[in-house]
């Protein structure tokens, strides 16, 4: 009986079997790389807003404290987006005729809210609370990056769960003294681990990694 398959079939079979392993492994690697890329996380991508609001100018330029606008950051889960009234506190006096601020004035006069695009958008099944993080010495810039250098806002970190859990497992690597929480100039000292360990004890920081800490 003649051979049905050509001899080269053996080689093809070997290559495809072993090749498949590498191919699948490669696919998996690619998938993880894609899922962490800023294409998925949108980290580092400046977002279009209805008004070209510059954190750089307001924070670095004018030295306004975070809490002047994000008023509920110490009290609530939500840090708060300022009502139009807050903008108008200053802008009824300065740049009161600037065309860039026309949407603000329009909102104030028509009583219709400005619709901002959410930059830091956690999935709806995640419940993050600003107030407790601020209270426990997690600085604004730790998560939001150097806001004072962002003309348009972007997301500085991936906001993926591994990033959250990184700090929840080892908070001593990231915490800072409470009086520096709202500082944009603060840089972690060389002895961060030593300081962090002290603060973790002092602030009673728990390493909360149960699912229901954030998911409920």
């Amino acid at each position: 009986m003649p051979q049905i398959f050509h001899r080269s079939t053996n080689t093809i079979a070997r290559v495809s079997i072993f090749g498949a392993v590498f191919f699948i492994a490669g696919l998996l690697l690619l998938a993880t790389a894609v899922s962490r890329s800023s294409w998925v996380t949108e980290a580092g991508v400046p977002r279009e807003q209805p008004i070209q609001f510059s954190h750089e100018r307001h924070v670095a330029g004018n030295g306004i404290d975070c809490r002047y606008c994000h008023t509920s950051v110490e009290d609530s889960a939500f840090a708060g987006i300022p009502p139009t009234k807050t903008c108008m506190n200053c802008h009824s006096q300065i740049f009161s005729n600037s065309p860039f601020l026309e949407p603000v004035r329009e909102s104030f006069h028509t009583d219709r809210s400005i619709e901002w695009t959410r930059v830091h958008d956690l999935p709806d099944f995640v419940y993050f609370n600003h107030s407790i993080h601020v209270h426990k010495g997690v600085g604004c810039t730790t998560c939001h990056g150097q806001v004072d250098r962002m003309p348009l806002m972007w997301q500085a970190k991936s906001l993926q769960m591994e990033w959250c859990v990184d700090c929840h497992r080892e908070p001593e690597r990231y915490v800072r003294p409470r009086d520096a929480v709202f500082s944009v100039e603060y840089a972690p000292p060389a002895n961060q681990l030593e300081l962090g360990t002290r603060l973790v004890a002092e602030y009673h920081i728990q390493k909360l990694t149960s699912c229901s800490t954030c998911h409920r």
Partner: protein
Amino acid sequence: MSPLNSSKPDNAGPRTWWRALEERAGDPAFQELLHNEFPSQVEAIADPVARRTFLKLMGASLALGGFTGCTLQPSEKIVPYVRQPEELIPGRPLFFATAMALGGVAIGLLVESHEGRPTKIEGNPLHPGSLGATDAFAQAAVLGLYDPDRSQTLTNLGDIRPWSAFLGELRAALAAQQPLKGAGVRILTESVSSPTLAAQIRDVLSRFPSAKWHRWDPASGEQARAGARLAFGEYVGVRYRFDRADVILALDSDFLGCGPGSVRYARDFAERRRPGQAGRMNRLYALDSMPSSTGARADHRLPVRPSEVEGLARRIAAAIGVGGVEQATGSSAGGQTTSDQTARWINAVAKDLQAHRGSSLVVAGDEQPAAVHAVAHAMNAALGNAGSTVIYTDPVEAEPADQLASLGDLVNDMNAGAVDLLVIIGGNPVYTAPADVPFGAALSKVRLRVHLGLYDDETSALCHWQIPETHFLEAWSDARAYDGTASIVQPLIAPLYNGKSAHELLAAFTDRPERSGYDIVRDYWNARAADLKIGGGDGAAAPKPGAGFSAAFESAWRRWLHDGLIPGTALSARTVAVRGPIPSTSIATMIAGAAGPRGAAGGTAPPPADGALEIVFRSDPSVLDGRFANNGWLQELPKPITKLTWDNAVLVSPKTAEMLKVGGVPSMQGGEHGQIVSDVVELRYRGRSVKGAAFVVPGHPDGCATVHLGYGRTRAGQVGSGTGFNANALRTSDAMSFGPGLQIARTGERYSLACTQYHHLMEGRGQVRAITRDEFVRNPSALKEGDQTPPKTLTLYPEHKYEGHKWGMTIDVNACIGCNACVVGCQSENNIPVVGKAQVLAGREMHWLRIDTYYRGPVDNPETYFQPVPCMQCENAPCEVVCPVGATVHSDEGLNDMVYNRCVGTRYCSNNCPYKVRRFNFLLYQDWTTPSLKLGRNPDVTVRSRGVMEKCTYCVQRINEAKIDAEKEERPLKDGDIKTACQQVCPADAIVFGDLNDPGSRVAQLQREVRNYALLAELNTRPRTTYLAVVRNVNPELGE
């Protein structure tokens, strides 16, 4: 035929627990049913072709399902305020006090508001009618507010018109009435306890002296009112002090389950049933017709037909020496020929009542005729209870009236053509009027008909104008509680559909038709300021309306709004005397004649020979008189005792069912422990007839059939229309609660009832535990007989360590009245969807908390217990170890966390859960599209999608909230800082949640109690939720 006939050999011993009649009868088919968890799917998988299809589908869904996770998150908007309200912190709820009136009696509430959207209702702890708890109706009011089927526009004959057009027509009609002094003007309201509304109506009547005010409210105690007038010669408010009562006799009264003050009564009653102080335990005797929550909690329950109650009540009254209660000769319903057992019962009750003079209490049920109420008043007077356990006051309702007569007068006037303008404020009289009062037909003879209502309902259809009414969460008003305490009803949200309140509609009758409800209510109370000793010292003449408000009033007003009640407005006690002999009710005599005397002891006597039965009408425990028919939460709520959802039924006793050869059988078709396929019967009563499904209720008295009102609505809305049958079609004005001469005939049709009693069965295990008080005192460990708790070491898994908190819960089965408030409270707090009847038939209802009903003893009068079953949060949780994706895991504080975003829907966890407390989203049950429903959801809890398992979380959102608040304030959590939703609403205070690591916490103390037991402890699951056994305070003279 159903296998529940009591003539079959009784396999069950007298002390055996059972949940279903089939279970008790030892029906083999039922046993099989019990062990097949998913009977509907069994066949599909055994069939080779279907299996292949199944595998194909599985493969395809796995491949395609994987990619659905690849979608990028859509961009979202943040919409801040333009001008932020001062007290509002975005992301933190605010709480406002308000009140909800039902049948003219209010319960004080605290409503949680998220950025202006009311999302959750709690009881107001300061309010005497609530003490922090609520009933199921109040819990479900949030859904009522956001119901998309509410009447949304003002219409004239179906055309949308502006308010000004209505005002124009009304003013013209009123102007035409002016010379007639309003002779053609009629106002029809529900029971009114709002002082402002009553004052407005009086004002209208003073402008139009010949106009008339009619009242019709099927939800208010018509007979109780009449009974008080019969006994005292005037309308009197009656309020009970269960906290002072040692011995209670309920005459067909469900004071724990429904009616004014029931939330408060349940708390007071439960407080006196803590076996810890066995000496203080009260004792409850109940003459019960349709099995009720009160009957279930009774230490001695006697099932009787409603018509027999009067005769028995009179005999008990006579036995304790009340004069003038004997019946006319030959008319003693349940009379002289009653069995020895009944006589013994009556003597024992009478003796016990007499032994507790001044601390006993006789309560008559709202459905009992006036004479029974009068007899109860006479008994309380004779026992010296008046002023001690019964407080008489002025009526809570403003100007009570004989509502049936009032409605009858109105219909007569309408038929006579004497009514030119009829304004119907609230209610749905076209649907709720008795069959022999042709309200709908008479209505067409009225020249101008106006209906103010929440829904475009049966009444609206026959009216010219339909005005959308504001929900109580949208409008200013006021109302009185069961003890008369007035509350300001404060709106939480602006009217969603430009509705008008009753106050604003009545303002249209005055010179200032555009006055706001706020001004009207505030002006009324400002005028009353002097009476309430407010007004800064001078306190002389009442300030004139519109004269501005004093600073003292302003501060008092703010205090009232904040506290949710106006201090000093509770009605003070009065002394009233029972007048003369109490005439017997003709209807009772009639029934006795028709049915013949029979024994009442547990239905031992045969039912009437001629086949005629007694019909019993009751308000539905879920939808009441039909006003909540379009509320999905209430429709899907398994009714206490029957566990029926989405339907009413013809409820009969097992013996009567056997006689009629009707009944239902649980069916496997369509789902898990499925449905009851029941015989459809035709009810023929006084020349009228309706068809309904028969349903057998253990403990129901023989020879009568109970039908619940509120179903068979035709214009209720998407949810409520077409559910059940309309029992009002049989109801006549001379027999509003019960009457003789009912004929039941089989039609040969079958109908599926969605009854949840057969769902989530724990394979006949895990029963409730009960013991008598004497045995409890003598040998409390008898409760633990046969317990097998495996040693803690009997597990392969390492033990969990809890350094911080260790949450736990106890549920006091002894206190639970099965009222369902916790189930709706949980549904509201945790965004639990409504699934609809078809899905309930498949055993897929989503309630995280179910209330199991357990029976013990004979089917005609079993002991009945309620055991609420949420997730047990097991220490060795069977669900956790089988999840392939780690979607359910143990938390540091002992919770079995359920992680929705990880769940892939294998349902292994549910399969492995011995308590059957996990719920799976087979379909997309949650409404993701209707905008108004989105407003009502709790923003702190994930809205689950299809294919996800869910279960009780111990309200982890509340735990986290409280922990964060405590951390921020740098203080330890106190016991009681965290209340789960079910705990908070419980009228009986049966549920306690707390930290087991804190030995001083209430829950830790309760778990050390001897009554504490765990469900299925023998499985070594070591549940966190444990139960406190029932202790029944049995009268030794009567025995068990």
